[in-house]
Structures are given as structure tokens and as C-alpha cells.
């Protein structure tokens, strides 16, 4: 029963289920790379899911929905940036506040949109390529947002590791004093990274409501924001690893259903636990090995005040 068809449809589903995670993970990676820990991913994601859906309902244009979902994510991220960067507040607490804020606001305003029908983003079957045996189904039958996510991961990788801006971002996250001393505007970099991160997380939410589940309902992110936080750690703050991680975590979710459908009884509780266990194992491994490549940005979560040593 575990034939090639099973595997290829599993892989195709993994990409679908992993894409919202990928957007959120890329966004949070960018934010954390600059030294800002934004635990509000779940709240930003649900806000993006709602905004994207509502704008698509109102305008009939799902892409406008995606854009506004990004802006809504930015708006929430701005609150976090203001508290974290300008007010030097406790970042985990502000982040958790963002979660409650996002869930609350969307629960309140989203009520009248439950059951509405929006215009959705549908898969496109790329001519010729999508008819390839197996590979076609796995790689070339997705919606445009799924492809954009992978391109974004590449762009982010290039930005972070191959450009001067990336160097400034990483320096800001690792050692803001040093960055400051060579003329990098630490606060500015952190604001930009947090806002852009929020934009991407918001799009991840819109993917859920407009391309994946294709409906809006209160609390529909159902913990995917938290999974993304785990994914950032899992991927070692590397955009390229985030791609694999997101598809892997998405795939684990789908795998439990697929195994059940062919009659292999694995308790769903177990499969839901796996991503967190894997993350903790990776984390332990990285602490033990002390490998820089796995490490968090050294100044992550620490407010930067010029001239004041931590």
C-alpha cells in the first residue's frame, strides 16, 4: 500500500500544509535575526488570515487580500517593535500580548465573516511539467503563493548571507554594540526586520484562509504560529533550512491522516507531538555541540540601549 503514488501525494500535501508555516517561519527568522523575539506569530497569523479573507470578500481580489494581510501583520508587528525597540520592553510579554490581541480582534470582527465566500487562490497546473509522472504532482500543481514562498526563502537567504544589508542585520542580532560602533542604526534595522517579518507572517495567515482551508473561522490558525516559532529554532535561523523544516512539519501533520486512511493506526496524539519533540531534540543537540550554525542570534530578545552593557 505504501506505493509511489502514496508517497508523491504525501509530498504534494506536505508542500501545501507546509507553505503557511514557511511564510511564518521566514518572517520570524528575519525578525529574530535582528535580535527581536516576537512570540506573537500566532496572533499575527490569525490577523492575516482574517484580513486576507475579508479583503477578498469585499474586493473580489484575493491578491489584494494577501497584500492587506501583509499590512495587517505589519501593523501588529509595529506594536511589537514599538514596545521592544523604542520602549525596550520585555519582548516575550509583548509578544504574548500580540497573540491575545490578534485572536481577540479577529474573533470580534471576524464573526460576521464566518460562512462568507471569498474569491480564493487556486492551484495552477504548470503546462507540460505538471504531467510528469509523480514529480509533476509533487512540484508543479501548487498555487502561486506556494512557489512565491520558496522564492522568498531564496531571496531571504541571499539578503542575509550575501549582501551588506544582511551583514548589518546579523550584526545587529549578534552584537548590537559592535554594529552601532561601525555606524549601523540598530533601532532602524530592528524596526524594518520586525515589520517585514510581520508582513510575511501575515501572508502566511492569508494563505491559510485563501489558499489552504478556503474559509474563514475564528481561531483557524490552530497553533500553527507556535509551530512556526519552533520551526525557526529547528531551522537554526536559516531561511534555506526553513523550507525543508516547514515541509517536514507540514508533512508530519498530513502523514498521520494518510497512514490512517490506508489503515495504519498511529494515534494522532503522537503525530501532533512530534514537531515539538523534534525541535527540543535539535535544540538540545545544538546546546551540547555548541555549534554556531545552530545558534540563536546572541542578542536575541535583549533590548539594546546605547552605551549600556547587559
Amino acid at each position, binding site marked *: 500500500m505504501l506505493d509511489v503514488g502514496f508517497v508523491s501525494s504525501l509530498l504534494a*500535501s506536505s508542500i501545501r500544509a507546509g507553505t503557511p508555516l514557511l511564510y511564518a517561519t521566514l518572517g520570524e527568522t528575519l525578525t529574530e535575526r535582528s535580535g527581536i523575539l516576537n512570540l506573537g506569530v500566532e496572533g499575527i497569523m490569525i490577523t492575516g488570515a482574517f484580513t486576507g479573507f475579508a479583503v477578498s470578500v469585499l474586493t473580489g481580489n484575493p491578491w489584494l487580500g494577501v497584500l492587506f494581510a501583509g499590512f495587517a501583520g505589519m501593523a501588529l508587528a509595529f506594536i511589537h517593535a514599538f514596545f521592544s525597540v523604542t520602549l525596550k520592553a520585555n519582548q516575550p510579554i509583548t509578544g504574548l500580548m500580540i497573540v491575545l490581541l490578534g485572536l481577540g480582534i479577529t474573533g470580534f470582527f471576524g464573526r460576521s465573516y464566518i460562512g462568507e465566500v471569498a474569491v480564493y487562490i487556486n492551484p495552477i497546473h504548470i503546462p507540460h511539467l505538471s504531467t510528469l509522472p509523480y514529480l509533476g504532482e509533487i512540484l508543479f500543481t501548487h498555487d502561486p503563493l506556494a512557489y512565491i514562498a520558496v522564492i522568498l526563502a531564496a531571496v531571504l537567504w541571499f539578503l542575509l548571507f550575501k549582501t551588506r544589508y544582511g551583514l548589518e542585520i546579523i550584526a545587529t542580532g549578534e552584537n548590537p554594540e559592535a554594529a552601532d560602533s561601525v555606524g549601523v542604526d540598530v533601532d532602524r534595522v530592528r524596526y524594518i526586520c520586525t515589520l517585514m517579518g510581520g508582513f510575511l507572517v501575515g501572508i502566511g495567515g492569508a494563505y491559510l484562509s485563501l489558499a489552504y482551508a478556503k474559509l474563514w473561522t475564528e481561531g483557524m490558525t*490552530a497553533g500553527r504560529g507556535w509551530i512556526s516559532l519552533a520551526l525557526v529554532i529547528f531551522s537554526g535561523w536559516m531561511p534555506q533550512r526553513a523550507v525543508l523544516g516547514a515541509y517536514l512539519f507540514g508533512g508530519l501533520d498530513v502523514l498521520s491522516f494518510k497512514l490512517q486512511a490506508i489503515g495504519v493506526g498511529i494515534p494522532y496524539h503522537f503525530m501532533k507531538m512530534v514537531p515539538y519533540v523534534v525541535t527540543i531534540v535539535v535544540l538540545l543537540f545544538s546546546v551540547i555541540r555548541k555549534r554556531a550554525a545552530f545558534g540563536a542570534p546572541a542578542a536575541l530578545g535583549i533590548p539594546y540601549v546605547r552605551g549600556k552593557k547587559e
Partner: protein
Amino acid sequence: MKGKFLVLIALAVLAAGLLAGCAGEEGKQATTTTPTPVKTTTAEGKKELKAAFVYVSPIGDAGWTYSHDLGRQYIEKVYGVETAFADNVAEGGDDERVIREFAEQGYDVIFTTSFGFMDATITVAEDFPDTIFEHCSGYKTAENVGTYFGRMYQARYLSGMVAGAMTETNKIGYVAAVPIPEVIRGINAFALGVKKVNPEAKVYVVWTGTWYDPGDEKDAAISLIDEGCDVIAQHQDSPAAQQAAEERGVYSIGYHTDMSKFAPNAHLTSAVWNWSVIYSYIIEQVMQGTWKSEQIWWGIDKGVVGLAPFNDAVPEDVRKIVEEEKQKYINGEVPEQYPFVGPIYDQQGNLVKAEGEVMTDEELLSMSFFVDNVVGEIPAASK
């Protein structure tokens, strides 16, 4: 420093995982907003009966809570009862406070519509002996606390007949919520309906562990469709499984309320609740002063459960045999527990009930096995 911080993150991730896990089990949708009682308009000014409803999830426009709210609107319209409701009330969280507030505000009857409200209802009822409480789907009663529920398995059985008649691959998918007796009973009744018309067909069960996660429920449905299932049934509140069937061009059977609008082509019928029947009965009893604590568990003969209108694709002969089975309940030709009448075999082929033996209500309420044409396992600690 770095190590310490990583440990902190690890703890945060672990806590988040636990939180997500807990929320996943019962009412993940019930944790976000603080419920405030919503008062709805009253028809006339004279001294009327006041009834309050406590819901576990947002009303939305499909699903369990929506079905109860239709009942609330019905008694408001027909009996002129002044009603109020609080939705999205967390079980074991805000529930006791919300119920108590309604009692303090002088509501005559308070309906609590989720199993998890049972203890809170009993607790508050002790402090307000003059208020009538009605708890849906529970088993604890008191002088002033009655319970009510519907024999949904009867409608499930009929909807299973439709699925069994319509499948061509003889593989029917069932997207199941959480392994509790109510869900298992629904699956078995459905499977017995399938078997009645199509002994060759099997019901494939996939558990999502959710009551409302459209993403996961859609994936579960797609997994079943990928394995060749051409009819998809479901238990959860979200219509995601219906949409998956619509997108993939297979049939579907809905639940709770008529889900046809979410899948106009796929949707064959839904097993639906009609709570207005029970609410009307209770309100009439209260109005006449004859109310007493009862354990109501009514079926299709009273109209508490039933089927949504059929899709045009369902042929006349199928409609006819389903209607004939339905009439058996109404005419009293079969016991209320039907289709749980022997011979019933479990998945291992053991005879659970011999020919002609009827399962008791207690056995129905604690059901923990699958009948023989179900493929899948019941996740349980004992296995």
C-alpha cells in the same frame, strides 16, 4: 548567556506545545474572546418567560452551536420567550460564571449546550433552586436540572444508507473528530447504514483529534479521497471536509446542519439536528407549570434528528428505501436503539449482539468498538 537563552526558548516552545495540545482537545475555538451575554429583542412587554442559552463555540453559520441557536430563535418567535445567549464560553473556564450571571439576572430556564458544562450547571443549580436548568448531552441531573439529547445515530444510519448506495469504489471515508462514545456511535450507525444497502462497502476512518480545525480536517478528507474513497462523511463543525469533496469531485455527507451550501455538487445529504422540537416541549412544560427534571433522549420519530434535503444526484429508489427505514422508527416497528440490533459483529469478527438482541442505552452511551465494516482503529490508552 546563549545557552541560558536557548533553554528559555525551549521552555517557551514546550509550553506552547502543551497549550496547543490542550486547546486541541476540547474547545479550541472557545478560548479567545470574553463572553458577554447578548440580549436579543423581545416581542412584547408583558411578563414573559425568560430563557438563556450558553454555547461553547461561536454561532457561525453551520455546526453544533448554530443548530442550537436555530432552536433558540424558534422558541423566541413561536412562544414569545425572551431569550439571551452567551457564545464562545470555555468549558471549565468561564462557564460557571456565565451560567451564574444568567441565574442572577432572573432567567427562568437556562440551557447549557455542551457536555463540558455539566458540572458547572449542577454547581450553579444548587445555589438557584427556583431556576430551571437544562443540560444538553450530559448524565447528571437534580431536582431543578434536566438533560436532553437527540438520538443522532438514527439519522447517521439513514445517511450511511445514502452513502452506501452512492459509492462506486465501495470505499467511504469518515473524517472523525475525537474518540469518545458519541463519535464512535455515529461512525458505527453510519457503517451499519452502509452495510444495509451495500455489504461490500467499507467505511475508512481518519481521526483528526479536532472539533474545528478546517486545515487539518480538509487534509484528512483529501487523504481519504486519495486512497479511493468516493463519499466523505464527517463529524466536525467545520465544512472543510465538504469543501474537499467538492474540489475533488466526490460525494459528501454533512453533519449538524444542512451543509449543502458549502458543497452544492458533492453534498448528498446531512444528518441534522432540529432542537426546536425539544426546546418547544420544555418551554411548554415550564409555561404550564408541569416541568419536572427529565432525561430526554429523543429520536427521529419526534423529529429531533433527521436528514437534510437530498442532492438531485440521489436516485428515487435510494430515497425510497431510506424513507422506508425512517418510517420504521416513526411507526415503532423498530426499537429506538435500531440499527444497534443483533447480529452485530466487531472488527475482529466477534459477535457483540446475537440475532434480535437490542443494545441497551447504557451500551450505546459507552460504545468503544467499531463494527465489522469499519476500517481504522480507535486510539485509546488501553490499546
